[in-house]
């Protein structure tokens, strides 16, 4: 960080201070979910990006670990979001308007979702429903047909959906896209920074193994 004394620059060229490069922070082991919440989110993300004959899904990518860690950190607390009131419902064109930052939204929405499931499906929480039952519920959450009392079901679905995509395709340093399964699935080569040799591909397939910000696991040398 730049201290007050260093906040003024000029006349001696580009200022440079050792150790100020913002290296990727990555996953830090912190957790937000209770065991029950974790089971619920694990089941939810597995329906959004299922494991199927095409290949790995959100489970193999570690999406629940990614979300759990994100919610335990500054994202979960909405530290970069404007969270001053008053809060109002808002129009679709006005975006997220809940008074809950993402972590709080998950907590309240999961409780409401599980309460609904237990009521409707013989005391079974979302994680214990069949995949067809889960899909039916998710469809209703997505469209706000299923109403949660404290938070908007659609707002929760949108955040969950965003976070699931993030966890499936982010750099593996964040705990999602584990072993780069998301990138492998779609053929994204990751954090490569020189494709000049491929400019004349002319519509042919480019198939190169992905690399992350930290390289690839097999590059590690003890």
């Amino acid at each position, binding site marked *: 960080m*730049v201290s007050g004394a260093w906040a003024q620059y000029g006349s001696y060229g580009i*200022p440079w201070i050792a150790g100020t490069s913002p290296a990727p922070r990555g996953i830090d082991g912190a957790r937000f979910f209770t065991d029950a919440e974790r089971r619920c989110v694990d089941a939810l993300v597995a329906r959004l990006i299922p494991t199927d004959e095409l290949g790995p899904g959100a489970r193999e990518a570690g999406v629940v670990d990614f979300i759990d860690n994100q919610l335990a950190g500054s994202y979960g607390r909405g530290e970069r979001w404007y969270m001053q009131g008053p809060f*109002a419902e808002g129009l679709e064109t006005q975006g997220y308007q809940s008074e809950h930052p993402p972590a709080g939204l998950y907590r309240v929405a999961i409780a409401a979702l599980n309460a609904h499931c237990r009521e409707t499906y013989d005391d079974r929480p979302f994680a214990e429903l069949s995949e067809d039952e889960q899909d039916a519920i998710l469809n209703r959450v997505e469209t706000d047909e299923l109403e949660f009392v404290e938070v908007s079901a659609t707002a929760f679905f949108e955040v969950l959906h965003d976070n699931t995509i993030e966890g499936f395709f982010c750099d593996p340093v964040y705990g999602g896209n584990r072993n780069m399964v998301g990138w492998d699935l779609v053929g994204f080569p990751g954090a490569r920074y020189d*494709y000049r040799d491929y400019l004349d591909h002319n519509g042919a397939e480019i198939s190169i193994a992905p690399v992350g910000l930290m390289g690839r696991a097999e590059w590690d040398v003890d």
Partner: protein
Amino acid sequence: MARKLPPVDVVLVGFGWTGAILAQELTEDGLEVLAIERGAWRDTPTHFPTTVAQDELRWYWRKEMFQSTARETLTFRNNRSQTALPMRRWGSFLPGEGVGGGGVHWNGQTWRFLPSDFVAASHNVERYGPMRPGMTVQDYGVTYDELEPHFDRFEKLCGIGGKAGNLNGETLVGGNPFEGPRSAEYPNPPMHMTFAQHRFEAAAKELGLNPFPGPSANMSQPYVNPLGCQLGPCTYCGFCEKYGCGNYSKASAQTTILPVLMKKPNFTLKVHNEVLRVKLDSTGRRATGVIHVDQNGEEYEQPADLVILCAYQLSNTRLMMLSGIGEIYNPSTGEGLVGKNYCYQVMSGADVFFDDKYTNEFVGAGALGMCVDEYNGDNFDHSGLGFIGGGYIACWTTHNRPIERQRTPEGTPGWGSAWKKAVVENFRKSTGVGAHGASMAYANNYLDLDPTYTDVYGRPLMRMTYDFTPNDRAMAAFLTERVREIAERMGGREIKVSPREGPYDSMPYQTTHNTGGTIMGSEPANSVVNRYLQSWEVSNLFVMGAGVFPQNAGYNPTGAVAALAYWAADAIRTQYLRSPGPLVQA
């Protein structure tokens, strides 16, 4: 009580593209220049090396590249019957923060506006008759010919790659035949096109259009600019917009100006200091300096002979309002000018899906594209069409970052196995064609101060009242059909057209091309600043940026923003410094 600091000749508020340009120009005359930036110091090897830059989650999705909405955002509503609510996180646009501003995370698509864009009111009224009711379009007060040398300077500063279509009035094959006459060829050749651009080019030619390479601030080859700054060749890594460039391959303040400017003894940069307001003398007609606050909350008064607002359009407009300079626009009465003529950009497009061809769009660059300009500005006859203006149509291959982009064909569900299958099948085999439409000013689209919500300092947030206008919708409908005609001919299996429908939504990313609010014009009755970007009210105050556009053209704005900055700097150096005072008599 603010602590009073020693005076300087010039204080610049904000330090992105326009701040760096003004600092570089005005220090040449020996002036003592101080730039105050609220964000952090940032430069290539420390902050955007390739081991840090290519992090989609962090820079875009967690918004670490942009202003923190926790400190300040704006409120938004579509119209005056609604209650504006805060944009709690960025969506449709992404204002920058820190040294280099938004110029760090731009794509680098660097256009000149058309000659007719600068006279949009008089030109269109003369040709087509009166404008639609409610339209408040007006002329810039400066012409293309006056700005031409300044466009040229910026292109050379940046090493823009492209192909001239009109060199001193002579039409050249392969360039944009509709552009205004340019005094020189682009300093660099065009970018190296890929498969998608080849298909777009062929389709456009089949339709009798004139495709040309998009003008690019990504380096098509190594380049040394007139200041002696060296830029490296672009490596087509697909992380331009929303990211810093780790390869010194994208023109920015960092790569084109700062290595020279930061060595000058008469230049000082102060970071992590936010300007709260411009301080006026008792007459209200002269700025005595600015009040700024450091990270510890200490306030300072910085006296200066000349104050230049170089922040983002939204911040410049708000700073004028918070400083009490000029009257805030009121749509009920039509009175007031600050905040008037807020405009944006009207985007629409189509995705193209191939069966047996790979577009491999991760091999991309921010300004790698082929374009056509037949349907921009007044390049075509608008008789009977019911709108003015237009936009360029392009096939840019900017990236294939997977969190941001999963193109799927019409009818694909949003999740589940069917979605996954569609993503897997199309991820490497699709491209997009987009229309980059103009945005015409209307009386009901404007900026003012929010009555309810405040920033971290307790000051009112800006309130945006905006929706697409009847002109926008008619124009976008027309442009979208032209997009469809091209997309259908690119040899894909199918296309998916995304027309511009429904109200403006502040959340899905569209462009960071917010304009207006401090508009320029011919007289104090119609504008906030004169043709030299000088405040009509306070003659030692100048306002840079796209806020001065009376309405937005069908192009990305940075080229015009920079040309206007050079034009204003030139007026300050050659006219104002000799005889400080109004450069245009009201």
